[in-house]
């Protein structure tokens, strides 16, 4: 039973990583939001699996909240931002697609190296997926740094939060409820504020190209 639990969790973590790769592969902002939404759904699935095998009722509640927030509310907010923008494509990010994919493979290898002490220390059956969670975190940092559109940077940030949530679920079966609720609230407010700032950017710059935000130097 333990082995099945472990395999399901690792499978789910790999799927979240593949959603991240899909995000790098696509060029339309619409596809970024879809990849993120699917990743959140897979993450909810992992939480539900952990809740089932560990008979933890609180985890079901957290998983439901997570699905509501990141699988539905936030993708809707993102779609609302991207609709008036029309067909904005991430045409030429700072790093082209093939190189991005290779860099991500290297980042996953780096994550495996960095998380050796974590996997060695943990006695939980979910420990095999922790390097993948750390890999997702590093890939999200890369996405934020290499994208040119403000909206895609926000989605990279949301993916970073997904990676951290995955790390928390795999390493410690979640964090205390009060902190979890605070994190959700922060995230929701953070996305709303980012949305407002992007509206400001669109109104003053007529585009959400981050390259235009280069006036303040030295």
């Amino acid at each position, binding site marked *: 039973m333990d082995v099945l639990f472990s395999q399901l969790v690792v499978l789910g973590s790999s799927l979240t990583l593949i959603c991240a790769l899909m995000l790098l592969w696509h060029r339309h902002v619409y596809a970024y939001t879809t990849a993120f939404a699917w990743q959140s759904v897979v993450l909810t699935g992992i939480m539900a699996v952990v809740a089932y095998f560990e008979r933890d009722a609180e985890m079901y509640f957290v998983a439901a909240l997570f699905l509501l927030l990141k699988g539905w509310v936030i993708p809707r907010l993102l779609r609302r931002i991207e609709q008036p923008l029309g067909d904005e494509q991430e045409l030429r990010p700072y790093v082209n697609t093939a190189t991005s994919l290779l860099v991500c493979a290297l980042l996953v290898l780096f994550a495996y190296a960095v998380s050796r002490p974590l996997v060695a*220390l943990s*006695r939980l059956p979910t420990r095999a997926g922790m390097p993948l969670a750390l890999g997702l975190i590093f890939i999200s940092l890369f996405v934020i740094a290499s994208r040119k559109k403000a909206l895609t940077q926000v989605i990279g940030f949301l993916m970073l939060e997904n990676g951290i949530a995955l790390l928390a679920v795999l*390493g*410690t079966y979640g964090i205390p409820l009060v902190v979890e609720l605070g994190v959700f*609230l922060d995230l929701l407010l953070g996305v709303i*504020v980012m949305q407002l700032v992007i509206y400001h950017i669109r109104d003053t*710059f007529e585009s959400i190209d981050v390259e235009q935000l280069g006036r303040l130097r030295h």
Partner: protein
Amino acid sequence: MIFAVLLLPPLLAAALAALVKPYRLVVGWGTALLALAPLAGGVALCARILNGEVLTWGSGEFLRADGLSALLVLCIAFVAALAAWLGPGLTAADAYSAGERRGYRVYSNLFAFTMFLAVTAHNVGVMWVAVEATTITSALLIPLHVTKPSVEASWKYILICSVGIALAFVGTVLAYFDFVNLAGEQPAALNWTALLASAPSLHREVLQLAFVFLLIGYGTKAGLAPMHTWLPDAHSESPSALSAMMSGVLLAVAIYAIIRWKIVVDAAMGPAFSHRLLVALSLLSLAIAAFSLIGQRNYKRMLAYSSIEHTGLTCLGLALGPLGVFAAMLHMINHTVTKSMMFLLAGRVQQRYQSTEIAEAPGLIRIMPVTAGLFAAGMFAIAGLPPFGLFISEFALMRAGFAAGQTGLMALVLVLLAVAFIALLRNLNRMLYGMPPAATRTGENEPWALAPLGLCVFILLVLGVVLPSPLNGLLNRVVEIVSP
């Protein structure tokens, strides 16, 4: 009770400003009066701490205030009061619309609330939530005047700081993971006293990894290089009262978070690891700040880079043993008072000259003599000249460094401080003297606003001459907590 006096008035003020539509000046005065309450509460808290108490509140000690918290509470309350009394929304003459004034009153009070929560929370997770909330509440205030530079600055601020804080959360999760593997899941697991108690048995490598993430994360918020890129933009483009709050005390709150985790990590594996990292990042910040100050053309950016320099000095002090911690905390107080005053003065200068370029704001001494005098005093202070408090704290830092045997390091720091000194005073010279542009009005507007700023200079002078014994006692308690 004291916690209620600290946390409730900002919330009430924010609610007051949010509910009264359209904005009326009396709301501004109301919120300013409410801002005095946390100041009184902070002084009372320090008195209780000096008596030897540690205050807690809530089931499971949700809020906990010891000496370090009390010091930060005092700083936050002081700057929040300054920003409330000298910020937009009190007179009809400031250059903001009613909506902007209302926005300022609501969000600056929420900002103050989140900072108070961050330094009094017992749970490091709640502390994290509060620090993230400070980013959110301040990000909307930066583009109070929506212009291209301010929007750019606010985007950089919210993105870089959110990413940094998320990395700090990775560190928190890793530390929690370490603790849970040792002691099993408990609801009080993330209380920092629980972490400290179990620190010696925590796993070294995992905690090292966690501390790296935490330092990078909270260091982004504190303005340590190389994560400082948002700081000059955000602090220079926001309204001056907000810059005062951000530069004066938000950086200190981020350093507070670093200190809390440093205590745990030092208890687990000795101080060498955290000291190495802190010294490296501080030196880098000092170097980048000092060299960026040369050739700086915008006086608000100049003040922002000076903040980076002083953050670097504070973090350097933390790495130099108990003497260094004393110096660092004293430096933090001095910097808070100075920098908030400087940004508010810069706001007055900007209001008169309508520009933040140094080249376009000469002849200050002719246009606004009192402001010029206070501005000069402040510049001497941040450059580290006696008889101001920052000279004493920097001297104490040097002494701690030499006592710890780090002579080469201190020599390097001296050189960098000299570089910054020259750059700052050159700019002061250009601003004070010279021919002002023809159409500039002479004389002070709102001379009553100069009184609190004069008070700041007075405090700096006092701290530069003698260290009052209550403050000495408080700082000693802090050193006991940080370097036992």
